[in-house]
């Protein structure tokens, strides 16, 4: 009898724990409306949630839109991590926006939908309405495409891809020991996408060889990114990263000299006839990371470089589609630092830009080197750290992606990893800095820009 009682108790315990486990999921959303005046535009803020390491941004990209007035209002407070829309991308989404901020474009990065293009109408708050059909560029440039919206009135997007193959000379013999390394063949794929009608416009694949001397020394183009249209609209510039092998073994060589910065130039819209131009001013890569690295201003394309042993430069490519080696804008000199490294930047139409950077003196924060913002002038070749923005060690800008531009004003997000921050609005003309809406953060996470 005693035993039976015991059994029943245990059974009911098991059953009630079952009931408990069944009754704990209930999804209901409180829709938060955001309002916007006719005269205003939407500012979309992107937030990157922590995956398993603080600052890794692998836990999802969330976006949330407010009006530009609200963005400038420090009494306003937004919480994208609680109320945002999670962009459907397995890894950090690379976002683009229409020039007026009314549309967000996304190409999913990795995962099953990797390479899928989608478009959303911005309606404020977490309300993003998918528009148009989906199209995938994965078959052409892979499921983790590097893409940019060209500055042609939101008509075209372009994505790029490079595959490499090492070429050896077997001396016509079976003997493997007499083989020698010849060069690495790099093949570039470029696709253009009709953003309005969600269609593939063009795709071309071509070899992008370096000079025979560079190739004999083991150099090759290993990554490309950041397609930018020139002023005439007849050439596309693509940033490049170089890698090197030891020609004696064919194995990766990380000790080699850094060559002059290179850009691939090809005909547009045919995407044919690639040539490679080299800078004698800057050294290192021009492929950037996640934010746009090259912009058209006043008939020339200005491009940042990274990994330059003398500190990042802003390089200039003229209307003749060649580097202007008389244009020397070294950020180490301009900022008075050493080891300046451009993380992201964006000019307004007046040739004055906001630039995110780190340098050798950056503190080591929870997620990497501390970042700073500077106001730079492409004409005057000056750069000034924006001191009105608060900085601390955990202020991390490596994954920074976007700056919304409204006339001469540039919107940026400021928040150290895991701490609240604010939107700041920089009047590039006057240099005035306005502290805007508060950004509510969560543990280990950060903000990656405005659109």
């Amino acid at each position, binding site marked *: 009898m005693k035993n039976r009682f015991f059994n029943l108790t245990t059974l009911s315990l098991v059953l009630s724990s079952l009931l408990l486990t069944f009754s704990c999921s209930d999804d209901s959303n409180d829709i938060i409306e955001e309002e916007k005046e006719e005269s205003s535009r939407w500012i979309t803020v992107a937030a990157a949630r922590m995956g398993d390491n603080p600052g890794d941004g692998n836990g999802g990209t969330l976006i949330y839109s407010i009006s530009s007035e609200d963005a400038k209002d420090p009494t306003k407070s937004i919480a994208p991590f609680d*109320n945002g829309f999670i962009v459907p991308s397995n890894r950090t989404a690379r976002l683009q926006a229409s020039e007026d901020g009314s549309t967000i474009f996304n190409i999913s990065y990795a995962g099953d939908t990797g390479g899928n293009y989608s478009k959303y109408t911005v309606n404020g708050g977490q309300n993003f309405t998918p528009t148009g059909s989906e199209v995938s560029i994965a078959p052409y440039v892979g499921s983790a495409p590097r893409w940019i919206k060209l500055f042609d009135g939101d008509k075209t997007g372009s994505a790029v891809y490079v595959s490499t193959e090492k070429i050896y000379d077997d001396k016509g013999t079976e003997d493997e020991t007499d083989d020698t390394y010849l060069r690495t063949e790099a093949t570039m794929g470029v696709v253009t996408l009709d953003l309005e009608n969600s269609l593939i416009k063009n795709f071309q694949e071509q070899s992008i060889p370096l000079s025979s001397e560079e190739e004999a020394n083991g150099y090759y183009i290993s990554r490309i990114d950041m397609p930018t249209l020139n002023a005439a609209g007849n050439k596309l510039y693509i940033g490049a990263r170089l890698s090197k092998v030891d020609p004696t073994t064919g194995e990766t060589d990380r000790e080699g000299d850094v060559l002059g910065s290179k850009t691939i130039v090809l005909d547009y819209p045919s995407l044919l006839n690639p040539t490679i131009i080299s800078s004698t001013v800057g050294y290192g890569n021009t492929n950037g990371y996640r934010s746009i690295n090259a912009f058209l201003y006043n008939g020339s394309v200005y491009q940042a470089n990274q990994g330059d042993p003398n500190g990042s430069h802003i390089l200039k490519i003229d209307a003749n589609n060649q580097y202007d080696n008389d244009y020397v804008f070294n950020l180490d000199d301009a900022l008075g630092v050493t080891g300046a490294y451009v993380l992201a930047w964006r000019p307004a139409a007046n040739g004055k830009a906001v630039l995110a950077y780190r340098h050798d003196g950056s503190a080591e924060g929870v997620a990497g080197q501390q970042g700073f913002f500077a106001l730079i002038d492409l004409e005057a070749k000056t750069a000034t750290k924006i001191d009105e923005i608060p900085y601390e060690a955990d202020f991390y800008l490596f994954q920074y992606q976007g700056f919304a531009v409204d006339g001469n004003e540039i919107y940026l997000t400021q928040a150290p990893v895991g701490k609240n921050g604010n939107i700041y609005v920089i009047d590039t003309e006057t240099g005035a800095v306005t502290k805007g809406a508060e950004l509510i953060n969560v543990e280990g996470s950060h903000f990656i820009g405005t659109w």
Partner: protein
Amino acid sequence: MSPIQRYSSFLLFLVSYVLVAQNGNLKGFAKFDNDELVLGAYVALKGHDLKRETSTNIDGHFIFKNIPYGTYEVSIHSLNAKPKTVEAVISSSEQTVNITLQITEHQDLQEILVQTKTEKRKIEDEGFAVNVVQTKEASIRNIQTNELLNTTVGVKIRQNGGLGSNVQYSLNGLSGSAVRIFIDGIPISVYGSSFSLNSIPPSMIKRIEVYKGVVPGHLADDALGGAINIVLQNSTKTNFNASVSYGSFNTFQTSANGLYRFEKSGFTVKASAFHNYSDNDYKVWGGQVKVTGLGGQQTPITARRFNDAYRSTGGMAQIGFTDVKWADQFLVGFTGSDDYKEIQHGAFMTIMPYKNRYMESDAMLANVTYQKEDLFTEGLNLNVHGLYGKRNRVVSDTLAWAYSWNGERAIDYQGNEYEYSWGSQQEKIEFGPTLNHIDRNVASIRTGVSYAINEYHRILLNHVYSGINREDRDEFAASFENTFAGTRDLHKNIISATYELNAFDGKLQANVFGKHYQQKTVNIDPFVNDNNEVEDEIISANTKNKGYGFALSYAVLPNMTLLTSAEKAIRLPNETEVFGNDGDNVVANPSIRPEQSNNYNLGFRFGTFSLKNHAFTISTNLFTRNIKDRIGLPLETSLNVNDEIILYENQGHGKSQGFDAQLNYTYKNNLAFNFNMSRFNLTVVNRGVEVDVPNTPFFTMNGNLRYSLKNIIKKNSQLNLFYTMYFTGEFSYLVPQGTNTVGDEFFKVPQQLAQDFGLSYSFPKNRFVMSFDVKNIFDKPLYDNLRVQKPGKAFYLKLNYFINKP
């Protein structure tokens, strides 16, 4: 008192004195003729004026103390065997009798269950958080070994598709290299993928032991989160069985196992073989299952998988002697296996399905087994099991043409068929076809010595060596590159010592163990020296670590047993983590430390309670796993983004906490019901921030119902009806998000309930068993990994033939 009385009392005293003096103990040991121990069997001793009763303990031993000298009959009754009576003459102070019971041929299923339970029970009573999975019932049905494991409490299988597809095992939330799998105590890495849980049929397997968190000393490997040990059939009784099965997706499976033993000489021949084939052409839809038209416009379709076939063939043959004076088993043999698996897609189902990408692997291994109980002296047992051979693996991906989900060549935005820029089906940076070989020489030897000091104390020493020597080459890479490809050697020695205590009439069982891990990795990379000669650069690392743990079970009440165990467990860094891998741009980190985890289990078992015809058992286990120095990849930063290199490092802590619960219920001999559930949460702490680990099915439930009917259609036949349900709670590919976010559904794997139905019919005499199974009756879309769809409704029919069930 009269002299006579006095005399007779003296005589009585004398007689009784003599009788006392002439008493002895009768010790006995009983086993079945398949070498399994007889536990809990009723033993009766009968003499002229004396009758005593006892039962065998979990080691198959029994004892009658203080029995007057004389001749007795000892009879033993077990539900699983024919009763046996032997004569025992007690003529010394301690006499031993060994009894071998013949398992009944015409046992009905209930008897099988009782027998299996006892075997199970013995392992479960050691105190570990262990589940013993019996394959007997599954082996006559259309059930894969993996499916069987998936219904086990606390175990979650995550499979990327149908038969033969890639599987991940998770034990209480820990998965990947934290879970080690063994075949007869030998790490499965020695066998490779061709001889695995995917290919070995349940009929070749005797039982599967799943140890969660705490792994006994005899399974020596760096198993941080637990171990799955597959025990192959090891009976020494002449038997044969064969089966053939056919079903949906052109799935054909056949297997045969046999053993023949010459009674007089003990010479034994043992062989098993299997062949599996499936097209795996099940239907998939949703997600990126689309065809692409002009301009890249997409049309969703329902597609049949077209590059997913699986074939595996293998077998094992052994000859030697069994149950002879000098060995219980001495067998030498050969294991050979080969499998071929087409690969339909990568980790995800993208819009670019693969065509003609496949993996082929084979293994050829010589094996030797020696087992002897009471070697040299009583209580000293020795077992040695060794393997040596080769295993090879090839991944082939040589087609550049793009294919579409309809199985045809895909067209580009202009309507032309096209080739991928990367020159193969799988996307990659390096252009060109791949035909990647990995050849390995493997060796492993496991030695176990145990000595039972007496009934209460036992000491065990175990050693496992496993060595892998690996060479990679790509047939399409220039021969030059292959010249400079390195070789990797890995040698692991794990020694463990265990002390076992059995006290308070078997109520308490304790087990304390220590493990010593030693791993040596050698990395040989050719390079060109200053004299333009090719030279080998040799780097080696030798790591040593210690771990320890205990397991304890205590029968608080006859129906209530406490089971608790703990271990400081280790996972040694693997070769890639230590040495890096040029192909993946991983650089060496010789200073990397092993992952460590403190694992705790606390469990109770209530039962078996019997009430008239009802019987049930409830068991639960609470667990925590505290992981330190997790090995992972660092964050990409502006400092390393262009280095093209990554290195593994120790980072942060992890924790898994939860419980398992299980209920078994039987009614008469007809109805059996099993239900289990498992729930846990898994978090990691990195640089002080704690997050829930995403992509983890943290809540699972399984239910199993069997109903038996006898004498249907024919007399002495038996019909079994089966129903199984698998429930997996919703989980997300993303870390938990805020309270009011939208768009989360994109990352969610919805709650799933799969239901299977089956029946088996044993013809009279039990020689033929036919079974029919329907899997996923309601044709629900099932996913283990985000939108990677598993097979829908499927039907299978199987025919089994037996001569002497093992």
